């Protein structure tokens, strides 16, 4: 699973370069995410703009990454397309993450 990373104003932006985070991809996604997250404190924005399908395995992988963050780290989500948004809403995980319409908004909302 390819993830593209970029740092902007102290925020690590991780963009998923795949259209599916399904059961066949979830473990590789989780491993790639852990490798893409820096060790120190800070904010990470996961850009899901390319993802058109996610299932509960993919959701579980994102939740698991969030649970394994170090103190002072935070994972936000951005650019969720309707099929991805549906999964977060149905499982109420939309109340657990800060979700931004796009990466630009995620960076603009970042204060400090």
């Amino acid at each position, binding site marked *: 699973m390819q993830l593209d990373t970029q740092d902007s104003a102290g925020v690590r932006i991780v963009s998923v370069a795949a259209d599916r985070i399904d*059961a066949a991809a979830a473990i590789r996604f989780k491993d790639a995410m852990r490798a893409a997250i820096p060790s120190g404190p800070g904010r990470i924005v996961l850009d899901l703009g390319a993802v058109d399908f996610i299932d509960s395995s993919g959701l579980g992988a994102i939740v698991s990454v969030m649970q394994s963050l170090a103190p002072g780290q935070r994972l936000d989500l951005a650019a969720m397309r309707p099929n991805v948004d549906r999964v977060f809403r*149905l499982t109420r995980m939309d109340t657990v993450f800060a979700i931004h319409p796009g990466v630009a908004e995620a960076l603009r909302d970042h204060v400090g």
Partner: protein
Amino acid sequence: MSAEADLPDLATGITLSIDATPLGVRRALGMLMQALERLELGADETGAVELVLAEVLNNAVEHAYAGKGGRIELSCRHAPNGLHVTLRDRGIAMPDSQIPAGTENRLRSGSDRPDGGFGWLIIRNLARDIAYRRDGGENVLIFRLAVGRDHAMH
């Protein structure tokens, strides 16, 4: 009743025999979603159908067969009140022969595998008339997806 995979006819019904692996599920979903194109569902209904089919197939792979592999038979038929789906596998039965409730609070339990609860939560939200039975060593799961209801049967 089953049509050939390359000539799917959803009104009479299509049946797929699926390899119970994550990649087998992905491949089957590709075929099923292609077959569903002729129903001309909107993006919202299409997305919901693919999601539920993914969840029930993943459950068979991960829970019924516990990742050890096997075959899953999935039948779909389009009727005026929606898409009727039957899933059969020869894996282990559901706990207490019941469909899991689907929980929202696995997050708090600290489980490393919160996906099981999420999966049934999604299925229960999107599928109708869900029924499960154990039938001679087979799990049989039947449900309906209330999509494409304005289209006449072909």
